[in-house]
């Protein structure tokens, strides 16, 4: 793929993102309630105060006007202020991005490191005891609710054995990396568990298919060792379908893991999203969802690039 093609692809995403933004804006504002209803929850709030706030946030304007002013502001990098906290949206998101990337990134790498070998072993030793065990574990991983597993592990590691903290990103007052890693173990493992289960199944079936191909049989017939057949000849082709699945999951790292972050009191994007949703904090919600859409578009692009890298037969003109 050359630079011109890349640029073309990137420009092509602009109308897509614009359409997505219109859709998101519409859906958000169609949902019942508005940001000021949070304030109205307090019996001591006066209707005059609410009216003042409506004007201050531009909520008294017609929806199309609100949308146009949002789009122009967004594309000039002006993301507005959170209605809930009155702080700049960009600051609000940046603060939460770090913890989310740490948690999501760790669990992503962890998942890849565990899922791919598991899938390969499962495929190579099809219908063996190891395969059945891995299959059993992945079904467990796919079907076990995250919150339940989290609670059980918290009870075991934090309450019974007292070896790991039950929640939070750090011991208060400590900024050491070791302390952060200590807090990272449980949530990262739990987040990885479900991905590992899914990805290893994809890896297995993809590998099984490739191992049945003629060229693999030829390689075997030529007398190559089993290891060379699997890792030199089969693996590359087996990886291609996995890239799509993994790349799409990659985008979700940026959106945060709502349940895991809530259970482990992890100050990330997922929790920010839920709080903003419950308060209909339109500026934060729009920024978060647009960032999520953008991440998805970029991941798709990356997946295409990765295809080409793994399989030289794929060329983008």
């Amino acid at each position: 793929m050359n630079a011109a093609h890349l640029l073309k692809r990137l420009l092509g995403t602009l109308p897509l993102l614009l359409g997505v933004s219109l859709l998101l804006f519409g859906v958000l504002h169609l949902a019942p309630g508005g940001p000021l209803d949070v304030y109205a929850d307090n019996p001591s709030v006066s209707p005059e105060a609410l009216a003042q706030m409506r004007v201050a946030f531009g909520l008294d304007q017609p929806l199309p006007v609100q949308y146009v002013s949002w789009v122009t502001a967004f594309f000039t990098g002006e993301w507005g202020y959170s209605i809930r906290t009155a702080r700049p949206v960009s600051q609000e998101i940046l603060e939460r991005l770090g913890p989310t990337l740490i948690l999501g990134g760790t669990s992503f790498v962890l998942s890849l490191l565990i899922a791919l070998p598991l899938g390969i072993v499962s495929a190579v030793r099809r219908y063996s005891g190891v395969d059945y065990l891995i299959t059993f574990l992945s079904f467990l991983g796919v079907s076990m609710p995250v919150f339940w597993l989290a609670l059980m592990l918290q009870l075991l590691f934090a309450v019974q054995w007292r070896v790991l903290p039950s929640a939070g990103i750090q011991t208060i007052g400590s900024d050491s990396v070791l302390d952060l890693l200590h807090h990272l173990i449980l949530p990262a493992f739990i987040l990885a568990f479900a991905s590992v289960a899914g990805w290893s199944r994809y890896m297995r079936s993809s590998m099984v298919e490739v191992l049945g191909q003629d060229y693999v049989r030829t390689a075997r017939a030529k007398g190559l060792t089993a290891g060379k057949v699997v890792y030199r000849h089969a693996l590359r082709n087996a990886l291609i379908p996995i890239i799509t699945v993994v790349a799409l999951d990659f985008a979700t790292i940026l959106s945060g893991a709502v349940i895991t972050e809530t259970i482990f009191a992890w100050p990330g994007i997922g929790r920010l999203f839920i709080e903003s949703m419950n308060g209909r904090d339109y500026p934060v919600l729009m920024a978060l969802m647009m960032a999520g859409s953008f991440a998805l578009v970029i991941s798709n692009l990356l997946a295409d690039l990765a295809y080409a890298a793994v399989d030289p037969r794929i060329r983008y003109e």
Partner: protein
Amino acid sequence: MATAQQRGGTLTVGLGYDIDTLNVYSTGFLGDVQAAVVEGLVAPDAKANYVPVLATQVPSVRNGGIKVAADGKTMTVTYRLRPGVKWSDGQPLTSADVKFTWEAVKNPKFIAESKDGTEDIASIETPNATTVVVNYKRVAPDFMSTLFTFGILPKHTLEGKDLNTDSYNEKPLGTGPFRVKEFRRGQYVILERNPYYWRKDSKGVQLPYLDGMIFKIIPDSNTLVTQLRTGEVQLAYSIPYSQVKQIDGVPGLRIVKNNVLSWQHLDFNLKTVDAFKDPNVRKAFAYAINKSAVSKALGGYPNPINSVVVPVFSYANAAVPRYDYNLTRAKQLLDAAGWKPGPDGIRVKDGKRMSFKIMAQAGRSTDEDAQQVIIASLKQAGIELQPDNKSGVAFRDARYKGNYDLFYGGWITSADPTYSVFFGSKGVNNGQGYSNPRIDTLLTRAESTLDPAQRTAALREFQSALMADLPSIPITTNPSMIAVTEKLGGFVPNPTNMTNFVNTSGWYLK
């Protein structure tokens, strides 16, 4: 009483919500952290009676603090400030700060949720540094449950600043026992001792006893309980009823029951549902609901109530019309109202089935459990209810606009509740469209007199009239269960919306 050795230590508190701002006037929550940092002129105590804080006494007609004008239409409230009080940056507190608080909160540019009370004030005079004379536009008996009780703002650091975006919202400056050391959003707030705090204990020991407090933000209630068990959190309130017994068995923890000023109720939508316009139908609902069963389903902690005024208040009326659980009576009333049992057991009138939607707040397990009991109770009388639960803003929107048939929920009030917001024809929280001129008259009378006897009489009569009319069925009053380390001394729960942290200076760790 704490001894000298019991001075020091840090208490870790678990909070179940994500703090939006530390400014008491603009937060969407009740201010827990704020209450330990910012003080008002007066505050409600553990029995919901107002006591002086920054003022030397609670103004009243008897002590001359409140003077009603000769025409009986306006009033003047005079506060004498405690001398020698300093902000936590060492500057003195003066009457100018009190006047500034009113001006700053009233300012239309300040986007605040709590502006209540600012419009009632015509002017404020400050004849000297410790005297504040507040001239009210009307006789406002509820003046203490607003404005200066929430907290005083520092003029010397906030004058000319934009309160919407000022750093005050992250690090409020107050006169309270603690000051904010660090606030990390989504994680924690660290409070440290205010070295200038004005209060001393009876032996002359400088308060507060604690070196500091940490408020940890833990949104998941199961995790909060886990943190209590591991000792990572030493105090947490609103423990789910289902987990109270489990915590009670944890060594080192005790459970404190706080009888908060709250009542749970079932509201009828009188605007859109014709069936509810018949008072006998409403009464049949009341007779058919087994309030003790509701309480039992919630671990037995809630207490059944017969009036919307909870028994804590002196003007609670025990002689209101009662609707004790009586299924036979409920069925008789429905029969008489023309609702006859249909083929599937559900009553029918003019071809219409007695089937309604009942809304509660989604995710609030206590309310959802109670809702199930109510649905089961009413089924016995031939009434079909279908849950229609909503969360967050959607729930509030439906509640205010009245987009429901029936609504189950609760209110928590200040020490001095204004019932007209719920039951007055123009009440801002009256989403059900209830209107009764007699109730309006009684509430206006109660809310515009300073005479305790007249106020009590009007409020007692209001309760009787309301229960006879029954637009809303009071079900239970739900206490808040607090889990706290046995090491904490001096802890007294507060039942009002000023939160448990309104007086932390006397807390100590053994």
